[in-house]
């Protein structure tokens, strides 16, 4: 029975750049455009970075400097769990008197899940609890840094040349204020930063944002080209005959998590600092309003702005499905929940013939023709035991039950195919009061907001036919 409540059974259609069918719980609602938005038709922006284990906030500039890794926390190289610091007492000679020994605390890193310890790779115990652990240095760092500098300079030069060409082509009556500085916004690989960000899936060049200051003398950086070697180190003689020591071989995942070294042996797996996670805010691409803005504090899970679809759009859920038989009419019980506090009127329509949205349905559906009225959501209703009857006249053929802001209603389903899953689709039309509309100061005594009617395309997957 609980499988019917799974969100994937009821899909709402989002008419964005692409037509996507997603459960309502994964959608956002832009109340300025009065449209549903999915994750693919909003722009994602990074809000803040934080470490998932110590929950420390980090400004973006610092995060970039530390390569998006936390300074204090480590990941187990074996199972990627968070490492914890453990202390042992070891006898150590006193600095004054070498003959006597005293107990000193020594710290080592250990994983609680796979029991890996820092002693396994030969890292010595440290005498400070935190801050003593160093990541091994990449032997190629210098060469890589030099290459990056050289290519940054090259990119800058090419950009300036291209902009100079563009400026030369422009008409002479361009304003003088259009100087070299403003051209810097146009990036090497894009049409402009704003447009580039809006296009989903467009790659962002890694060199973006780094620019030489005007006036800095352009030092010529030269690099040596990589040398191709003719001779390669020969394989050791017992390469084919030596038995493989399986516990020593690292898995691909362990190896690729350390792209600097990619050790083949487990005794060279050093722990790395933990990756930072980020909080993101979502913005509607059409009206540029924020749809979701989380709190800045990493310990808080609340949102400053949370325009999720479930708090504005009535939600359809499947309650019970009888045995579905080919070409036989059966009644399916659905529930409709009203998320807002005022009364909502919902009417359902079947999809017309040749509806371009109706591609997945494999059964005919007959929806109730009357309008369904949903009571508003009353937060105090659960505490009020003497709930007054709501006074709605319900047709018992259509409405099965009514409970505060939820009703159960029947639809009739006639499966058209002999095999396969039964999918039905219909249109849901409801009234929506836009509370974000500006208040007109002159008219008083009138309704504060007007209702607009929204129509959504809903698809239900009712499962296989009864055998």
């Amino acid at each position, binding site marked *: 029975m609980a499988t019917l409540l799974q969100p994937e059974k009821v899909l709402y259609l989002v008419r964005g750049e692409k037509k996507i069918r997603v459960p309502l719980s994964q959608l956002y609602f832009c109340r300025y455009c009065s449209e549903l938005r999915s994750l693919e038709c909003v722009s994602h922006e990074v809000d803040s970075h934080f470490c998932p284990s110590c929950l420390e906030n980090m400004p973006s500039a610092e995060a970039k400097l530390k390569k998006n890794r936390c300074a204090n926390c480590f990941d187990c190289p*074996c*199972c990627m769990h968070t490492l914890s610091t453990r202390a042992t007492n070891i006898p150590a000679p006193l600095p004054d008197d070498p003959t006597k020994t005293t107990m000193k605390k020594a710290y080592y890193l250990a994983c609680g*899940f*796979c*029991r*890996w*310890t820092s*002693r*396994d790779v030969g890292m010595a115990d440290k005498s400070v609890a935190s801050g003593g652990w160093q990541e091994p240095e990449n032997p190629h760092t210098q060469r890589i840094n030099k290459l990056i500098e050289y290519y940054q300079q090259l990119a800058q030069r090419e950009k300036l040349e291209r902009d100079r060409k563009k400026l030369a082509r422009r008409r002479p009556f361009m304003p003088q204020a259009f100087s070299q500085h403003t051209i810097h916004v146009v990036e090497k690989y894009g049409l402009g930063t704003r447009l580039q960000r809006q296009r989903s899936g467009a790659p962002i060049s890694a060199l973006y944002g780094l620019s030489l200051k005007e006036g800095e003398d352009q030092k010529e950086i030269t690099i040596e080209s990589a040398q191709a070697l003719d001779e390669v180190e020969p394989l050791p003689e017992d390469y084919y005959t030596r038995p493989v020591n399986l*516990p*020593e071989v690292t898995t691909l995942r362990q190896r690729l998590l350390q792209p600097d070294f990619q050790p083949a042996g*487990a005794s060279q797996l050093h722990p790395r600092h933990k990756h930072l996670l980020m909080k993101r805010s979502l913005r509607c691409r059409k009206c540029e309003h924020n749809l979701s803005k989380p709190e800045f504090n990493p310990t808080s899970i609340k949102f400053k702005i949370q325009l999720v679809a479930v708090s504005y759009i009535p939600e359809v859920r499947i309650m019970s499905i009888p045995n579905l038989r080919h070409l036989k009419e059966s009644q399916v019980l659905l529930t409709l929940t009203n998320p807002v506090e005022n009364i909502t009127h919902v009417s359902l329509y079947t999809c017309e013939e040749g509806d371009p949205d109706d591609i997945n349905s494999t059964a005919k559906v007959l929806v109730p023709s009357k309008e369904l009225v949903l009571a508003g959501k009353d937060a105090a209703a659960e505490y009020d035991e003497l709930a007054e009857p709501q006074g709605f006249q319900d047709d018992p053929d259509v409405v099965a039950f009514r409970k505060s802001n939820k009703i159960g209603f029947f639809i009739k389903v006639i499966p058209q195919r002999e095999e396969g899953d039964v999918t039905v689709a219909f249109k849901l039309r409801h009234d929506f009061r836009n509370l974000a509309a500006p208040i007109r100061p002159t008219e008083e005594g009138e309704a504060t907001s007007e209702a607009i009617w929204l129509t959504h395309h809903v698809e239900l997957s009712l499962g296989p036919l009864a055998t």
Partner: protein
Amino acid sequence: LSEETESGVVKIAAGAVVCVESDIRGDVTIGARTVVHPKARIIAEAGPIVIGEGNLIEEQALIINSYPENILPDAEDVEPKTMSIGINNVFEVGCVSQALKIGDNNVIESKAEVGRNVILSSGCIVGACCQVNTCEVIQENTVIYGSECLRRVQTERPQPQTLQLDFLMKILPNYHHLKKTVKGNSTPARS
């Protein structure tokens, strides 16, 4: 309290702390400094169980020497095999151990299951919820972890839980009745 008839005697060495609420049936020998928590079950159906010293058997752990699945208990040609458990092992809450031979310093974590044909040598750790029912000898210092029972070898064996054992041996008698220990080997131990 009526109990089913025991087919053997339970010998608890002096110094062991075995709570009365634990369920020990059959021919079981428990070594010194071993702590058996209440609701632990040690059942010697198809043969005796010998448990060494310094072991820690936590609540709802099940150590059972049962008949192999395809043999009926009434068949005549089944020899009783002794299950032997070494020293300093830890059987965490809710684990099930049917292994016939367990060495020293092993840890069987919560809700792990060890089958009958597995032989744990020393220093092995069977992670939480891992089921090991192959027919093999697990190498020393092996750690079995994760939902896919991945393995790795660690360089040092897990430390014996001496601190925990000392603490429990002091605290448990304050709150539970203990089964009687024996010095000899003939008197049945039931308190």
